[in-house]
């Protein structure tokens, strides 16, 4: 029986790895995405069953306790979460993934080095490469855990979203990284008795947690898409490192897939902001030698919802450009309601989505999908930009920097070079905004002074509700 199992378990792991890849492949198309997710969850089930078979008859008390508690928390969170809160949710999941990897590596250290009272280094007990990857797993996992918690606090508004200016933060961060690496190497190859290994492992975890906080703390709200993608990637790398500790290929493969996924998203987000990853992590935004210019506005025309509704009534093509303000105001449903009225009147309505609109990759798409907006109407920046010239009305809802023409026209602007949605090329632009206060980049938006731009000041949801009311009255 055990012989047969020993043959079957590796095959089950192989099946699981293949299904993970097929599941991800399903995510490349909207139509097959849901099935892809189901395939990936089947892969997970197979991997868990294989592991339980491999373990054989053991004491299941701790295992059951962990499964029940984790399953309950995860299940309730997944079913309760609002779509507007997805960035926070993903941040927390990144954190618990990283935390799980660090905990596994710590548990292995205790199980095989510290508790048996092994006299010698961790490297001599586990083997050099396994001990080294255990160290990496603890470090990356704890950085991911604390970094994600800080990201969560910022995203949910419990911590200031604006970048904090820690002077000399680069010196502090590189110093902390060096200390963490030093402790890790000493824990692995230096400490030669169980008590010492335990002490250094705790120290490594603590410094890792501190490093995660220091790294994410100074990063501001609009850079969150980059940070959240990077933490996503790290949670995968931590899982792969755990795979090396256990010599388990399913962990290595799945971890690599997640690591690659997060890294690609990080790249896409950086490109969409015309910034490098290093700049996001290590430079304070706007602290380069750039000119933020004059923040005074002239020639701003403020309109009422009634006037805007009349313009929309006449329009035969309308593009909605949503931003983070849409998510904050939870205005996705009323946007859809307005679009439905316009469509019923014969107008063509689509949505122009900037890659970094919102606080995480794809944030706007999920919000609008929740409001039943057909995904065919959600157009990427490169697709929609040539269309603006022939668009009657662009409605900018809670977006600012991603439509700022300074990115194209002012080489001295901190956002110069960032690809933007060229809404100014359309016949008229309606901007719904709380006030004239600058966006994340802290600079003036020349669009608001354009002759074809009109501002409606107010909460996005309230203004849109007024628009819907006016449109209904006009009809």
């Amino acid at each position: 029986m055990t012989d047969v199992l020993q043959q079957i378990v590796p095959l089950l792991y192989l099946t699981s790895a293949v299904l993970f890849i097929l599941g991800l492949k399903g995510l490349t198309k909207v139509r097959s995405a849901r099935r892809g997710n189901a395939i990936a969850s089947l892969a997970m089930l197979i991997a868990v069953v294989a592991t339980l078979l491999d373990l054989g008859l053991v004491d299941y008390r701790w295992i059951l306790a962990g499964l029940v508690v984790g399953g309950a928390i995860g299940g309730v969170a997944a079913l309760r979460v609002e779509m507007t809160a997805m960035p926070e949710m993903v941040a927390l999941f990144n954190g618990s993934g990283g935390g799980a990897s660090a905990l596994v590596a710590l548990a292995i250290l205790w199980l095989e080095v510290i508790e048996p009272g092994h006299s010698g280094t961790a490297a001599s007990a586990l083997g050099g490469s396994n001990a080294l990857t255990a160290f990496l797993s603890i470090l990356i996992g704890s950085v991911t855990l604390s970094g994600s918690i800080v990201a969560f606090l910022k995203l949910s508004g419990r911590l200031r979203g604006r970048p904090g200016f820690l002077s000399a933060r680069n010196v502090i961060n590189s110093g902390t990284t060096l200390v963490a690496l030093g402790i890790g190497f000493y824990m692995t190859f230096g400490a030669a008795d169980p008590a010492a290994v335990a002490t250094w492992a705790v120290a490594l975890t603590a410094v890792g947690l501190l490093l995660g906080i220091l790294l994410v703390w100074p990063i501001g709200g609009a850079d969150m898409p980059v940070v959240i993608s990077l933490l996503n990637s790290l949670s995968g790398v931590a899982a792969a490192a755990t795979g090396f500790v256990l010599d388990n290929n399913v962990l290595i493969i799945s971890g690599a897939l997640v690591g690659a996924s997060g890294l690609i998203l990080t790249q896409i987000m950086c490109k969409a902001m015309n910034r490098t990853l290093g700049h996001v992590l290590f430079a304070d935004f706007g602290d380069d030698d750039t000119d933020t210019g004059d923040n005074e506005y002239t020639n701003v025309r403020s309109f009422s919802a009634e006037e805007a509704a009349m313009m929309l009534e006449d329009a035969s093509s309308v593009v909605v450009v949503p931003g983070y303000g849409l998510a904050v105001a939870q205005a996705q449903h009323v946007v859809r309601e307005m679009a439905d009225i316009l469509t019923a009147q014969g107008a063509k309505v689509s949505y122009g989505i900037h890659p970094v609109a919102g606080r995480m990759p794809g944030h706007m798409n999920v919000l609008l999908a929740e409001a039943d907006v057909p995904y065919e109407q959600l157009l990427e920046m490169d697709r929609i930009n040539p269309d603006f010239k022939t668009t009657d009305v662009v409605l900018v809802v809670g977006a600012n920097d991603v439509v700022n023409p300074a990115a194209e026209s002012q080489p001295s602007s901190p956002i110069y070079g960032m690809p933007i949605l060229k809404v100014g090329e359309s016949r008229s632009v309606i901007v719904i905004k709380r006030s004239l206060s600058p966006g994340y980049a802290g600079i003036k938006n020349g669009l608001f002074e354009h002759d074809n731009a009109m501002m409606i000041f107010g909460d996005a949801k309230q203004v849109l509700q007024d628009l819907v009311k006016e449109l209904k009255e006009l009809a």
Partner: protein
Amino acid sequence: MMGVLLVGLYVFVLACFVGFEIITKIPPTLHTPLMSGANAISGITLVGALWAARSGEAKISSILGALAIACATINVVGGFLVTDRMLGMFGSRKDK
């Protein structure tokens, strides 16, 4: 010993390439479900956590293992469920 590590590295590097190939093809519309799905997949550390918690005794390693199981299960259950919920919304207009 080095043999196992080397095989592991081969697997890791090749899997990274597979990941890059597939994920660059995922459209921006699906980037949020991709992240939450990736969250669920990174819950694969559950496999390692099960190993770590296999002894029923009240030892530090078992407690760490049980905590790891809880964290990883949050990812697995929560990640797959919330991804499914989101993807259900993407399809809803079509099904009507």
